[in-house]
């Protein structure tokens, strides 16, 4: 059902073999804690499959590691290869929740889940309105900006809901309204623009924070993410996040958009 694909799931001093219950109501399955290199990304979300070593006692009969009567030492030798920089399976299962959609079993090729090799196409999640998945270069935002919510947020994620772990991405802000401060449709003080990267595991902290310094333009403004300060190697791998905060422009008939243009994963650049 799920596989971390070699991502770091916990920090331990020794490996061991035990059992884990992957879903409520299912029988526990044998698992092995093994070492991975320090260069491996950590699992990017909170999850329920940490080691019981960190608990006061080793008792658990719920989801996650079980209080197995026989826990055996393991040298922690890793498999020959790791493939993938993202886990496989719905994020709900990693969180111990029940996913909305039916879960398909993992397909293994040469002992490795196939989905570890090929990540599904990314999508864009965000508001306004209900969370909706957009595929490709689809604008996110309002088409008529008379009544825009107070903020627009967009995250580049995979279609199964897991956040994308990218080594680079490009996002642009599109606004075809006025930039005149007098009418305040787009104002540095009231409409700060945050286009940034978040480090793995941290959802809200943006490393790039730039207030709206658009050069007044009669039609639109482009804002490349690679000009953001602080987007250095400290943050890699990271998630792609963009948001527009503050009171929304109130110029009707205009369009405000966050557009993810491209992302880099595993050294390859993909254009959305």
């Amino acid at each position: 059902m799920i596989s971390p694909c070699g991502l770091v799931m916990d920090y331990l001093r020794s490996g061991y073999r035990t059992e884990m219950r992957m879903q409520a109501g299912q029988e526990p399955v044998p698992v092995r804690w093994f070492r991975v290199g320090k260069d491996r990304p950590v699992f990017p979300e909170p999850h329920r499959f940490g080691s019981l070593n960190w608990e006061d006692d080793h008792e658990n009969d719920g989801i996650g590691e079980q209080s197995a009567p026989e826990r055996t030492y393991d040298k922690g030798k890793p498999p020959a290869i790791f493939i993938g920089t993202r886990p496989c399976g719905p994020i709900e299962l990693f969180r111990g929740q029940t996913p909305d959609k039916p879960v398909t079993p993992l397909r293994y090729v040469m002992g490795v889940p196939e989905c570890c090799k090929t990540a599904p196409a990314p999508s864009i999640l965000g508001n306004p309105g209900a969370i909706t998945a957009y595929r490709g270069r689809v604008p996110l935002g309002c088409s008529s900006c008379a009544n825009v919510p107070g903020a627009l947020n967009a995250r580049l994620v995979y279609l199964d809901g897991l956040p994308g772990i990218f080594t680079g991405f490009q996002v642009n802000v599109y606004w075809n309204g006025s930039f005149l401060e007098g009418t305040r449709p787009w104002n540095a003080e009231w409409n700060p623009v945050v286009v940034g990267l978040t480090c793995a595991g941290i959802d809200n902290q943006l490393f790039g924070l730039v207030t709206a310094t658009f050069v007044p333009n009669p039609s639109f403004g482009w804002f490349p993410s690679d000009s953001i300060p602080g987007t250095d190697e400290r943050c890699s791998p990271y998630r792609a996040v963009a948001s527009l905060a503050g009171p929304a422009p109130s110029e009707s008939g205009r369009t405000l958009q966050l557009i993810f243009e491209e992302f880099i994963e595993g050294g390859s650049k993909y254009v959305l």
Partner: protein
Amino acid sequence: MAWYKVNFLFGFGKQGWSETYYHQATANVDVVNFSKALAQERKRLMAYGPVLEAIRVSDDAVKGDAQLIPSNIVGTGSVGDMPCDKIETAWYVRLEAGFFYRRQLHLRGLPDDWTTSAEFAGPGIWQPTPAFKAAAERFCAYVVDNQWLIRVKQRGAENEDRLVTNAVRDDNDIWTITGDFADWPQFGKCIGLRDLEVPQLYGEQRYVATAVNTIKIQPKIGGGAWGVGGHFRLVKIVYEDITTAALIRASNRKTGRPFFLTRGRASNRVTE
């Protein structure tokens, strides 16, 4: 609101240690941000060399819950080029929550200048340098001012003791006690036992309330048979605000192996 456990994982060559803190928060992301801020304060006390390798955040009430913040976010010590060659030397900080609860915190990974070269006040005694004292007091104040907690065991009052008169053991060595315990499960999941007929069971045991007025106790392996006599008292895990954090004295405590050795056991061999 949930109580979160925050583990700081440190490493220095072939040694490593961890520090544990607690905080209350409504969501993981909040406590992650609190932890990162605390990490920045903690790094002010670290020499060049020791590394705050990672932070582990977990909901203390959910077994196996884990969220990892990797080293490329938390980073190395920030006390410039002041080296540290002996991390066994630490400073003992006493954390107190009101009058009743206290906990030890051993700050290690300090610059040598702050410990071994400080004013010598007697055999085996070091006085903090003014620079270290100021930095440590800043850290202590931060811990107090930002609602960090200690986790303590709150024992019921003496008059809440209840006499054990009807314990029954089953074939699996699980004892069942019935009685008027309807109010107990809401108090805690541990009980303290005393004056039992078999002393091996003395101490705190976890219990499972399987039904109203029924408590089951599974003694530790080798705990021996239990008669039917004795008293027991509930023990509750509570989280208390740290009200005082005081620098007490230098300490010398060995550390274990680190979390991030790529393989094998830690070696004691000294390499030149």
